[in-house]
């Protein structure tokens, strides 16, 4: 690792320098430690070593060092960033100060939090945007209560990269055994709170050992320097872009009647024109038409980019909605368990309505009394009736309408929220969603009542859904009818949900647009699910053209109870049969949105059973389905 010496390149070839610096990445990190750990000295050193200090500042620094510094005639780097005493006198709230420096590989934003009272609130704020945390430990003191507290908070806020900087190594004679013991102590603690890994290093912020340059005093240390590590640590870019797509809609862009764009910053995943998306919480689906930017349309956009999407359909979508991957949407719920960090002098009032802001959604929320409070020094759970300033607790909360969310562990943007006092408008708390309560409540509720197992036992059968999918006229209803008759003869309790019949009643309000087709399948899925709860073997005969909805229905059912049966009839054959005369109408244009003609059909990729109707008779097909149901295939 070499010292960063940009001057030569700047002076020699500014264009090459600019080119190099336009391709840097950005790393945001937080430094954790109290005054005595040498945090300010370390940050000052980083700024100094990366040549981010101008001569006039340096002159002032040298003068101040001699006047008020704590390092004798040497430069007191802490003075570069401190100046906090004066601010305290002026009564200015100090929570987080942001410092900036750059090397040839990365730009860094350092969140610096003063390490005294208010520490929890400040550190949580700084950690909320950090990719990495530098935990400073004084080599003379080892792992202290505050080290554990800092680590717990960093871990709580989802920081995946931790650096254990054992500082002031110069004051312990660069002793390897001292260092090894601290690292071992810390490793034991880290494992106990679920920290998967960390990068330890012996440094001296004051002397500069292993900060920018490898130290001659620690030949036993083979790892990277602090800057070397900060420059090279792998960010979670690829993982974030591989997540399912999420765009919280910030603003609807409507410059004229012909353009309607949905603007926001992508919270996760990747999006491309042609991608199927679902609008949450409504559940309507559409397709991405364009990714519009000032610099031209994009072929793809990824997490962290601010974009504007247009959709193929005129679907309802406004601020607060989330546009998500249709095949893997996020959850929608109105009751949650969450960790809450209280940040206001006024304690939390369980039951009082607060504004809750999550992503671009603003709702009213009620927080229940905490289940427990966490002692941030010992990680013990304490009983608590409320939460005071800087307290962290776990509580249930409910919102006045459903919100789209993800657990905080999966997404900071869709799992982190703030609470706002409705009277003072102050931000009073930060929260991290764990999970929605609905599912766990249902299981509990059913267990007390006549259970689905009881229903099934009474009928002496296992409930199941036989889901027939295929083009119109493929033979779904014909085969399903034969299967049901056979099952009846076997004393099975069944029910056949047929597409046409359902559209005469339950779904008579739905048409054949993509959105309506999705809703059609969703409702049928819910009905089929209720019927399996009642112990029935359900047969459904619906075109169900989209993979995403068939997958959605599969997810609704108990494991092993859903069978996707693909009635595979080539379009030409189905059209030739045209039992209901619909293909003729579709071809003549009098029938719109007809699957296979002007509306797509997405064949199953891995159906539980595929029936090629050009090769088997309806009766043979029915036999195959029976075998599938009884596990004889």
């Amino acid at each position, binding site marked *: 690792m070499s010292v960063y010496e940009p001057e030569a390149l700047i002076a020699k070839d500014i264009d090459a320098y600019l080119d190099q610096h336009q391709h840097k990445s950005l790393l945001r990190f937080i430094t954790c430690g109290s005054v005595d750990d040498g945090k300010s000295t370390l940050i000052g050193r980083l700024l100094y070593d990366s040549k981010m200090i101008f001569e006039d500042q340096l002159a002032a620094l040298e003068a101040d060092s001699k006047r008020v510094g704590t390092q004798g005639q040497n430069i007191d780097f802490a003075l570069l960033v401190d100046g906090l005493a004066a601010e305290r006198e002026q009564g200015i709230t100090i929570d987080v100060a942001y410092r900036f420096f750059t090397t040839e590989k990365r730009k860094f934003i350092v969140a610096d939090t003063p390490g005294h009272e208010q520490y929890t609130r400040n550190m949580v704020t700084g950690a909320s945007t950090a990719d990495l945390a530098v935990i400073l430990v004084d080599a003379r003191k080892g792992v202290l209560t505050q080290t554990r507290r800092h680590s717990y908070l960093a871990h709580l806020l989802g920081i995946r990269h931790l650096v254990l900087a054992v500082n002031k190594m110069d004051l312990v004679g660069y002793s390897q055994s001292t260092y090894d013991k601290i690292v071992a102590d810390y490793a034991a603690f880290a494992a106990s709170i679920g920290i998967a890994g960390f990068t330890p290093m012996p440094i001296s912020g004051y002397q500069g050992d292993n900060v920018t340059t490898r130290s001659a005093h620690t030949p036993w240390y083979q790892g990277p320097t602090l800057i070397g590590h900060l420059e090279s640590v792998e960010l979670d870019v690829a993982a974030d872009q591989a997540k399912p797509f999420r765009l919280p809609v910030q603003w609807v862009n409507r410059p004229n009647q012909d353009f309607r764009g949905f603007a926001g*910053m992508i919270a996760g995943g990747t999006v491309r024109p042609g991608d199927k998306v679902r609008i949450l919480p409504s559940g309507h689906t559409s397709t991405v038409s364009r990714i519009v930017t000032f610099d031209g349309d994009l072929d793809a956009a990824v997490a962290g980019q601010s974009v504007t999407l247009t959709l193929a359909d005129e679907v309802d979508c406004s601020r607060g909605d989330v546009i998500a991957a249709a095949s893997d949407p996020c959850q929608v719920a109105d009751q949650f368990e969450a960790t809450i960090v209280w940040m206001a002098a006024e304690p939390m009032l369980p039951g009082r309505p607060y504004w809750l802001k999550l992503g671009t959604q603003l709702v009213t929320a009620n927080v229940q009394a905490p289940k427990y409070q966490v002692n941030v020094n010992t990680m013990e759970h304490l009983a608590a009736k409320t939460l005071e300033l800087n307290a962290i607790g776990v509580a249930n909360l409910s919102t006045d309408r459903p919100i789209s969310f993800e657990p905080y562990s999966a997404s900071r943007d869709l799992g982190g929220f703030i609470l706002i006092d409705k009277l003072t408008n102050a931000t009073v708390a*930060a929260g991290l969603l764990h999970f929605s309560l609905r599912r766990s409540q249902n299981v509990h509720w059913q267990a007390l009542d006549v259970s689905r197992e009881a229903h099934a036992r009474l009928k002496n059968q296992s409930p199941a859904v036989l889901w027939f999918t295929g083009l119109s006229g493929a033979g779904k209803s014909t085969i399903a009818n034969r299967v049901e008759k056979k099952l009846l003869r076997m004393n099975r309790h069944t029910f056949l949900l047929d597409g046409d019949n359902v559209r005469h009643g339950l779904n008579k309000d739905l048409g054949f647009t993509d959105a309506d087709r999705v809703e059609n399948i969703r409702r049928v899925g819910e009905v089929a699910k209720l019927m399996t709860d009642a112990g029935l073997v359900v047969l459904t005969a619906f075109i169900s053209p989209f993979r995403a909805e068939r997958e959605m229905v599969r997810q609704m059912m108990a494991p092993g109870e859903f069978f996707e049966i693909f009635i595979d009839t080539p379009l030409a054959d189905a059209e030739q049969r045209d039992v209901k005369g619909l293909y003729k109408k579709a071809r003549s244009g009098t029938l719109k949105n007809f699957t296979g003609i002007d509306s797509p059909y997405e064949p199953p990729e891995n159906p539980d059973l595929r029936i090629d109707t050009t090769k088997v008779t309806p009766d043979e097909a029915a036999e195959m389905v029976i075998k599938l149901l009884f596990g004889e295939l």
Partner: protein
Amino acid sequence: MSIELTHLRRLEAESIQIFREVVAETENPVMLYSVGKDSAVMMHLARKAFFPAMPPFPLLHVDTTWKFRAMYELRDRMAKESGMQLLVHQNPDALARGINPFDHGGLHTDLWKTEGLKQALDKYGFDAAFGGARRDEEKSRAKERIFSFRSANHRWDPKNQRPELWRLYNTKKAKGESIRVFPISNWTELDIWQYIHLENIPIVPLYFAAERPTVERDGLILMVDDDRFRLKPGEKPVMRSIRFRTLGCYPLTGAVESHAATLPEVIQEMLLTTTSERQGRAIDHDQAASMEKKKQEGYF
């Protein structure tokens, strides 16, 4: 295959997110447009944020009548080019009293800028104003929030600032309160220059070195931009190759001697230079007039 976002793209995305959040959650926003390089970047980002629509807010120039002529030219050109509405406010009181930087010292800034800004915000009823301040400009700004709240009489209450977590901004405010929003808080001077270079953003030519008529006073090189400049007895304008690192009222803004006539040369000089940006502004040298105090009084 993942797409690597550079630091400039991430800063850009963050700024755009802030612009959109303000437009979505406030009633009557405005952008303070001072015609400097930070304003130029801010305006460019605003145009990106709302494309293909125009930014749904006007530009407000709180004018002192003492800006460089080249600034007025670029201001009018950019307003025209962007199609955005340009509001120019000159404090009528300062105008009537003939307040100028030669006779009135600190009062000049106070009346034209601080009071002028308050007047304009009140006159149009703006409840949110975008400003181009950056956290790297000086130590006291490092802890500034991106959203800064002002009381109905424009006072800043430093004891009551809201924590800013994740990308969540609490924009709730009482009637009469307003917000100053700084979308380029996390940009450094180098980022600004690189972005101007990368995106080809028009800036005032005064940032580039050229032969200009100057006088030297109190260690500052001042440009004689028009015949209102009062020459002291015996003082004669001298042609020097100069440029400006920061732009304000021309009689108060110090130039640096330079031959950097292109953007890369300017950046090169900036990187190799040894004095920090705000040194060129007379305002910061005012005895103990800390930024903090000015902010509490309503200075942007």
